[in-house]
């Protein structure tokens, strides 16, 4: 059996060879080998470590004490984390090795990693195409076998969409299931730390280590097994066909239908469902997310963190630091968020969006009385070309149309590879379960993997 140290060494060699063309990692940690050696020593002394041998890549908006956490932004390019995120602590205690930090769209705002201040990552299946985003570096690293699994964060699809584009498994847990302590905040009522892995089983193993309530995150909570929706032997999966008509590509639709046939052949019952307000999810998202982002990003004022640019007076310092430190998409969302929260517009936009959010949640709650899970394609198309949508923000936002509803509702969701299109690009099947129903999507996901292999 290879030791953790040897395994880490192999991955380091792979990263050195492959990363220059992918730009998946922003930094590889020099202490990874030393830590691997210590894990080997623990194992030799008889300790049981559930994640020994996992060599994990960490999205660069999750804090590791003593390491830079840039969030893909110029404004934090020299920011060194002062403490470990709760997920980092839990993974380390379980024997996982952190190989490095991965690229992302600035502050996790984007669907392609093209918004990173450190250049885009590339899709390992086609270097001319994006890996998706915002956890694009993590997805590319898993797909190219530059790690065993990776951490990401999912605010509107940022784990599932790149997982689908890169042909790997992506899990967004129930809102609150995994502590957000130490995650650089984008939109706090939507953000959730998630996982990218090669198989559903592997994602489940890691999920079990990071799940659970945490004193450092008042929104975190996970009920006991008896109080969670259970995975049954016979399950029913609902498909909101009406929502798919909103603009899904032909090949994606065909692949999705084939996926449903495979689930049917595996004993699942497939039924049509209606989620009358799901069509408002993306509009709702593009009010709530920027509103929260504009508040969360107010802390980058040139005083407390990272970059500082001198202005004529204090206000000048703020304007200049933020003007220079933030990229185009970040500015766009901060200004949009400031606008929808401003006096006179607050009711029409932000308050309206919070009401519609409840309608969408209610739609899900009603449907989950009839079905155990919901199936959707993860994305409307396969990975697009670099630059294809870079100048049209709305077109870029639409890449998240099928992933955003789970964030708005707070439900868990998974993207599982479902084959490739005619150009050889991966596609993904998305499964959404009721709140705290991770066990359900893991079971269906594993059955689906078996069905397509």
């Amino acid at each position, binding site marked *: 059996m290879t030791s953790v140290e040897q395994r880490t060494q192999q991955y380091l060699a792979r990263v050195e060879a492959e990363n220059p063309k992918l730009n998946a990692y922003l930094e590889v940690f020099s202490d990874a080998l030393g830590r691997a050696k210590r894990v080997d020593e623990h194992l030799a002394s008889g300790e049981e470590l559930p994640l020994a041998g996992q060599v994990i890549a960490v999205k660069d908006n999750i804090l590791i004490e003593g390491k830079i956490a840039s969030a893909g932004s110029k404004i934090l390019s020299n920011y060194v984390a002062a403490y470990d995120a709760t997920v980092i602590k839990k993974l380390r205690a379980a024997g996982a090795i952190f190989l490095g930090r991965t690229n992302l769209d600035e502050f996790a705002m984007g669907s392609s990693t093209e918004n990173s201040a450190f250049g885009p990552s590339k899709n390992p299946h086609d270097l001319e195409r994006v890996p998706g985003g915002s956890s694009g570096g993590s997805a590319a690293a898993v797909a190219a076998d530059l790690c065993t699994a990776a951490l990401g964060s999912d605010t509107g699809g940022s784990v599932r969409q790149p997982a689908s584009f890169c042909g790997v498994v992506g899990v967004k847990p129930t809102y609150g299931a995994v502590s957000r302590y130490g995650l650089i905040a984008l939109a706090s*009522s939507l953000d959730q730390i998630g996982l990218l892995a090669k198989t559903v089983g592997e994602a489940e193993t890691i999920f079990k280590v990071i799940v659970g309530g945490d004193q450092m995150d*008042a*929104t975190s909570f996970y009920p006991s097994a008896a109080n969670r929706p259970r995975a049954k032997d016979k399950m029913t999966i609902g498909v909101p066909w009406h929502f798919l008509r909103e603009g899904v590509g032909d090949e994606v639709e065909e692949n999705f239908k084939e996926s449903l046939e495979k689930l049917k052949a595996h004993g699942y019952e497939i039924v049509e469902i209606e989620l009358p*307000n799901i*069509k*408002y999810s*993306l*509009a*709702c998202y*593009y*009010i709530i997310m920027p509103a929260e982002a*504009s508040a969360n990003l*107010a802390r980058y*004022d040139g005083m407390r963190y990272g970059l500082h640019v001198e202005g004529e007076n204090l*206000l000048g310092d*703020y*304007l*200049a630091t*933020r*003007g*220079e430190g*933030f990229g*185009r998409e970040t*500015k*766009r969302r*901060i*200004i*949009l*968020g*400031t*606008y929808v929260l*401003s006096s006179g517009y607050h009711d029409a*936009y932000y*308050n*309206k*969006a*919070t*009401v*519609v959010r*409840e*309608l969408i949640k209610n739609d899900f709650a009603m449907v989950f009385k009839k079905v155990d899970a919901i199936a959707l394609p993860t994305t409307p198309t396969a990975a697009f070309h670099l630059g294809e949508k870079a100048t049209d*923000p*709305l077109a870029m*936002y639409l890449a998240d149309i099928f992933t955003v509803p789970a964030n708005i509702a707070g439900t868990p969701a998974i993207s599982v590879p479902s084959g490739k299109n005619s150009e050889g690009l991966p596609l993904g099947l998305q499964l959404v379960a009721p709140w705290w129903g991770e066990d359900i999507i893991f079971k269906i996901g594993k059955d689906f993997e078996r069905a397509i292999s």
Partner: protein
Amino acid sequence: MARLARVSLTSEEEKALTEDLEAILTYVDELKKAPVIDFGQGRPVLKNVWREDENAESSKAEGEHYKVKKILG
């Protein structure tokens, strides 16, 4: 609005962002078509899990004002 958001913009950025924001705001206007539903107790909101704010300076209250250290000379 950019000033309120404390972000300086170049004139080129200002032009591009104005167009982008118009397009995005037109899209999110879709929400106006969403049904209006009374949930019974007014507007539904997320539950506040934080404790109520307490003012640590309350011992220094003088009528409606708080005494604090001078910040700017």
